[in-house]
């Protein structure tokens, strides 16, 4: 009680100081709310970030936009070519369509499976099992591994003869007299192999879903149970609606991320058998750094940006119909 009073007294004293300061600067406040010195300090403190952002962020972005209208082989000065890069990309280059198809295929399978997987794992690890912390750590660990290391490991796992995956599948395949899948060597199976590999990293989504699941109010579950809802109906009518924002986040970020898949393809297969793993960003990279076509690569980059923007905008628009934000209710 005494302590409480003391803190209130201190607050009262501070309150008085505040009033004084406000009165003193009230004239200046209308023109300069923050105070000149404070403003200078603000800019000084933020200047390292601003300089970094301008030099390494915004600057290159604007440069890339300008470059997309030019032809630049890195060594000689760029030359203006107008919209010919964009026209070539759309009308003349068969590989652009192939790259978009490859990326689209990968995204359509990897993102929903990944999100569903993350949710499933999160639900399993939201119960009181033994060694919960260990399990959560184990599932999250793959997201910490560098993309290159992950690609090298998975390359060996997918090895048709001695890889772990085929060794596990072989007994089942032999039953039906099926051959060993050639995974990364096969034009048909290479992309599914990438999808399988992406599922290794569901731990990242799992963390987000765990947070979402734990924010579902317990009393709703109890109420549903009292009303006679079994676990499946509880999930469908209590859990799912409340975590729709988390699902939305996971799907949106997942799509933005999978559209940009690069590292694994660069390390494991390159363009792959019959260009089946020529993902969009890999094709962009090849144009920029191997084919001496920086301008064309910049145009590719901006088209990707526009595609991702449109897809994300559509997602947000559609989200109004199925995402339920608790605060709005």
């Amino acid at each position, binding site marked *: 009680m005494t302590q409480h009073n003391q803190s209130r007294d201190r607050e009262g004293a501070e309150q008085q100081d505040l009033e004084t300061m406000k009165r003193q600067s009230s004239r200046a406040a209308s023109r300069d709310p923050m105070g000149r010195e*404070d403003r200078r300090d603000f800019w000084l403190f933020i*200047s390292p970030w601003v300089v970094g952002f301008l*030099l390494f962020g915004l600057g290159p972005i604007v440069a890339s936009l300008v470059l997309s209208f030019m032809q630049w082989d890195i060594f000689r000065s760029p030359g203006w070519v107008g919209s010919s890069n964009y026209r070539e990309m759309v009308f003349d280059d068969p590989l652009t369509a192939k790259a978009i198809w490859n990326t689209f295929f990968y995204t359509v399978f990897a993102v929903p499976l990944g999100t569903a997987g993350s949710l499933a794992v999160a639900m399993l690890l939201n119960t009181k099992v033994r060694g919960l912390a260990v399990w959560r750590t184990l599932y999250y660990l793959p997201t910490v591994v560098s993309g290159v290391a992950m690609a090298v490991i998975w390359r060996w796992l997918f090895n048709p003869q001695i890889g772990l995956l085929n060794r596990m599948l072989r007994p089942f395949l032999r039953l039906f007299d099926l051959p060993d899948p*050639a995974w990364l060597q096969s034009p048909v199976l290479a992309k599914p192999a990438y999808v399988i590999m992406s599922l290794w990293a569901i731990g990242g989504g799992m963390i987000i879903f765990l947070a979402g699941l734990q924010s579902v109010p317990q009393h709703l579950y109890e109420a549903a149970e009292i009303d006679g809802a079994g676990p499946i109906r509880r999930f469908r009518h209590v859990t799912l609606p409340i975590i729709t924002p988390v699902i939305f986040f996971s799907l949106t970020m997942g799509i933005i991320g999978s559209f940009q898949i690069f590292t694994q393809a660069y390390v494991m297969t390159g*363009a792959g058998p019959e*260009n089946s793993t020529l993902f969009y960003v890999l094709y962009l990279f*090849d144009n920029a750094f*191997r084919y*001496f076509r920086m301008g064309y690569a910049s145009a590719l980059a901006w088209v990707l940006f526009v595609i991702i923007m449109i897809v994300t905008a559509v997602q947000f628009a559609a989200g109004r119909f199925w995402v339920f934000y608790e605060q709005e209710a």
Partner: protein
Amino acid sequence: MTTMRISSSWIVPVAVVGVLVVALIGARRSYVDSRGRPVVVYAHPPCPPSLMALYEPIWDEFRRTHPHIDFRVLHITGKYEDKIKVMYVGKIAPDIIFMYPTALPAWAELGTLMPLDAFLERDPAVSRDDYFESMLRTFSYKGKLYGLPKDASVDLLYWNRDLFEACGVDPPEPNWGWAEFLDAAKKLTRDTDGDGRIDQWGTTGWSWLQWIWQNGGDVVSADGRRCVLDSPQAVEAIQFWGDLVTRYKVAPTPTDMQDLGPWRLFSLGYVGMHAEMYPAVSVMRDYAKFRWDIAHVPRGPAGRVSPAVGSALAITTQSRHPQAAWEFIKWMTGPEGMRGLLSVEVPSCVKLARSDAFLRQPEAPDSKRVAVDALEYAHPPVQSIYYQELFDTIASELDRVWRGRATAAEAVRRAIPEVNRILARSEGTSKR
């Protein structure tokens, strides 16, 4: 309680920004050292430690014999060409860089390399005749020499002596044609453990390019404007190459390769023959558990041809001491420099390559003479600034032939419009 005014610690943010700015504009290299000697920087590509152990004493020897030059070696890790490109754009390019035959045209065309003809003519100590003519041609572009050849090699036929003897096949002969080659490959292919699948092959397919050239075909026309893969000779050659895997089944399929690549498969003893460059002998000595040797690649209907795969040293146009740089590349590619590398490379210096110092070395391969004689039929690569893109395009189509999903004629028909489109583009570039 008094707090220090934030504004009096403006030192910190300003210092941080200052460091950033200095770091960005401060990237420079030195051109003259403290003693006034010219600084010559040579960018050495990624190199295993065993090879580095051979290079270090050679470089020290150069420093010892050329005390008026400050010779420095820049060790590049990661992607060599990318790193050099970045250095070039940042105006801190090294004086001397390493060049491969296929990369040379692009770099020369884009104005990054100095022509060396004038140096060669003016220097009394060295002349064109000192080097293998085919190598000089390989590293020339549009009539000018851009790289002084360092190690000379073509794709040589490596063969597994133990496997040949076990299958009762005679060693490869210099006058082997495609038929004899195929015959030997068939005899070497067998199913060793009786499980119904072939696990020992006669040969790998190696590169399709060589078969095309041997049959008299080519990839682009002489003027570089048209793709000529649709000539009957080229199509026939591509079909033969694909048939090695699909029809005659003497070469491993992509699945059989176990993701190892043809070279590894050979060095592990699963394949009887493979074509590779000479410096691979060092890998073979370390890893191969069988007796092996090198031979000439089989002779094609239009003659014996093999792609030139050596390396060269070039002087960049950003070098401020080209004469000093020339001192190094002349010395390095000549007898003094290459003497230390004879165990793993064939020198481009004719006298040294034909000397006992190279030919009489005790370690495998026994037939070192083949590597030297083969330089007579070294074929320069297709020279195009868009080399990488061309070959990615062609290879992805020919890939289907190798997998049995298309005939050579079909694959070529699909590749030609794409290749012509790329070639048409490079025409536009050179006009600018």
